[in-house]
């Protein structure tokens, strides 16, 4: 078998980077996993996710297993608290500069996998009108995850459990004015998952989901959407909310029930904004650093010359995983991580012939 002793550099220690590192190692190639934070686990860890959409697995436990698999693998070297600050060379032998605190050092990598992921849309930005930063009882999916994790689903204004909770979909997605024209793909499923969890923790709460379209791909339809509606009695209302007004110590949400063609004004205790995805600051930074083409939203351009390779970037020998290239759920992330690992190892070995 051809060998290239230089490791595959994996940038980002979230689910995508972890899965890529594990797969690279399982193919017999050393992996060097670099993570800017001091912990592995990525956004599910940093944002205190409660449960994953996959079988409602406990996020900490599921991601913890992945982290353990990677850190115990002798072929994977993990550098946390470390950033990539420079890169030159080409496929087969990239010369990268890593910085940890004040110290920098050089490493040689055969190929590179970028798994720098996404960040949640900030609803305080741009044309938002939901008063996220003014009304304490307007929260985001991320805020709700953290509350669900600690079993403390309350109205931040008074610490009391809410009687009525409303999710508003498509916040920061599918919007030309904001500039995020894409569908963030996961928010419909996450909102439905959270609605179920809220009902599990607060069985007497009434939960509404106000939506434009419910986009429940594949099995999310029967695993999340139908149980939420049929078993947990979540109210799905087709009609998006335009504004939230204070009403005493509650919130009045105003929208249109589009199937009835009538205005609606619903009083609730807690509003959850289903914020979408944006490329993370790390994704933007690493894309620039490595000279990778980005699309107009800042995601790393993927597809390659054929348009059919979801992990190819504009630079040979550099591959991209999951939400660094597009809004992605965990299935997308794991699938592209495995593919990127295979491509990276194959490219490393081919390059070994010519080097």
């Amino acid at each position, binding site marked *: 078998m051809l060998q290239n002793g230089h490791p595959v550099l994996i940038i980002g220690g979230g689910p995508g980077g972890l899965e890529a590192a594990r797969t690279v190692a399982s193919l017999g190639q050393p992996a060097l996993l670099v993570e800017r934070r001091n912990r592995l686990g990525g956004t599910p860890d940093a944002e205190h996710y409660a449960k994953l959409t996959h079988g409602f697995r406990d996020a900490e436990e599921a991601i913890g297993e992945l982290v353990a698999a990677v850190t115990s693998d002798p072929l994977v070297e993990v550098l946390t608290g470390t950033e990539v600050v420079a890169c030159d060379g080409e496929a087969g032998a990239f010369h990268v500069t890593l910085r940890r605190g004040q110290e920098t050092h050089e490493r040689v990598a055969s190929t590179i996998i970028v798994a720098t992921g996404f960040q949640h849309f900030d609803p305080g930005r741009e044309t938002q009108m939901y008063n996220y930063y003014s009304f304490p009882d307007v929260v985001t999916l991320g805020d709700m995850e953290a509350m669900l994790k600690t079993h403390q689903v309350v109205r931040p204004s008074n610490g009391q459990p809410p009687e009525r909770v409303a999710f508003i979909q498509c916040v920061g997605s599918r*919007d030309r*004015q904001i500039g995020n024209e894409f569908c963030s793909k996961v928010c419909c499923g996450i909102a439905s998952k959270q609605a179920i969890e809220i009902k599990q923790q607060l069985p007497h709460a009434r939960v509404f989901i106000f939506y*434009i379209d419910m986009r429940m791909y594949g099995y999310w339809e029967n695993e999340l959407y139908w149980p939420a509606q049929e078993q947990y009695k979540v109210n799905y209302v087709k009609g998006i909310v*335009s504004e939230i007004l204070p009403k005493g110590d509650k919130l009045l949400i105003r929208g*249109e029930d589009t199937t009835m063609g009538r*205005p609606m004004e619903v009083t609730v205790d807690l509003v959850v904004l289903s914020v979408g995805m944006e490329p993370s600051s790390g994704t933007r930074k690493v894309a620039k650093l490595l000279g990778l083409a980005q699309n107009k939203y800042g995601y790393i351009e993927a597809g390659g010359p054929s348009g059919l390779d979801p992990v190819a970037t504009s630079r040979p020998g550099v591959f991209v995983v999951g939400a660094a290239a597009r809004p992605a759920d965990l299935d997308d992330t794991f699938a592209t991580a495995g593919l990127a690992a295979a491509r990276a190892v194959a490219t490393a070995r081919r390059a070994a012939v010519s080097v």
Partner: protein
Amino acid sequence: MDSSLRKVQDVWEQDTAIVEGVDISGPWNRMFGQRVIWDYTPELIDEIASLPGAESFAWCYQCGKCVPVCPVDVVGDYGPRKLYRKAQTGISLLDSPDLWLCTTCMNCLRVCPKQVDMVQIMPAAREQALLSGRPLPAELQEALENTARYGNPLGQPPRKREAWVKDAGVPVPILHQIQRPVEWLWWVECYPSYHPRGIDASIALARIFHALGLDFGILGREEKCAGDSQRLAGERGLFEMLAEENIRTLSKYEFHHIVVTDPHALNAFRKQYPKYGGQYDVWHYTTLLARELPRLRPLLTRQLPYRLTFHDPCYLGRHNGEYDAPRQLIEALPGVEFTEMPRCRQNSYCCGGGGGGMWLDSFAAGRQRRRLSEERVLEAVATGADTLVICCPYEVSRFEDAVKSTGHEGRLRVRDIAELLAEAMGLIGEEPAKA
């Protein structure tokens, strides 16, 4: 549910009907209009979207965000996204009363994720309706004819446009008389020149300008309507004629800036006149007075024991981004209490006068459970205010009528910011200057 509500559209009754000897005249034989939708067609969407400026009509994805912020939907069964849906199901916007209900207030565009722009779609569609010979509402027709004939929608003689000046009590220089350059050309506009309550505000403003020692002048009888609302009502040809004439008149005189009373004129000068070669530095009077606050403030000596609320004009706020200047002026008034209405600033509720609405009140009345101005007055009353402060000349007559029709006469007064400032300066009394 209000039991007196009855939807009359699409309902038919035969006055006289005897079936098998049974009299079922009137409501007993009530028939309903077509309920089943037969077909979905792109043609009537294209009919609008193919008009220059109206392309975005076809972009709607039916999310419905526009409907709750649409001031017309609040009082009737109308909503921007419904126009697309109706077109899809075979109802032409050009033949629908919906065509004349939009006030171009721009609140739908503010929240629209697809940037469907009714401010451009409506004038384009209305122009198309006119060009294709469809009848337009009679009252609008009259206002447009008046504008074409007299240069103002009220049908007043042009020479009377400067008549208010003799009541001003301070010198109001008229440019064709003084023959010298001025720093500020004051574009008074139609309602502030002719309407009695508009004149009250003009007199107040003239006295404020005079007290500040502002070097200003007006065009008087040479001024014609800036024409923006006529343009938005679909009469682009008339607007172009007015713009060209006004630009020609303005070119005769030397001035540094234009100060306008009317936010609709502000909009025309800022966004439309440059297309016809008229480039000016244009200010709304609230912006100018807010800038002059250091000199104005010491003159505000009288206590005003009023509880105020303020209505943001669509064409000053959403269309031209000025929300702060009127509030700075209100806060400078000694002794007043100020409360915002729930729908304020970017989300201000339209008075119903924009986009030709000023001349469509009867037409709209039959299609709405109450006027937009009435809806707004009720919101103002609910704040506990005794005075509704305005700074757009369309509003004083609209809101004063609405105060009466909603039974709040004597409980809510409608006053221009200029009137309140002038009162605080001791330049006018508590009653309108000319009353």
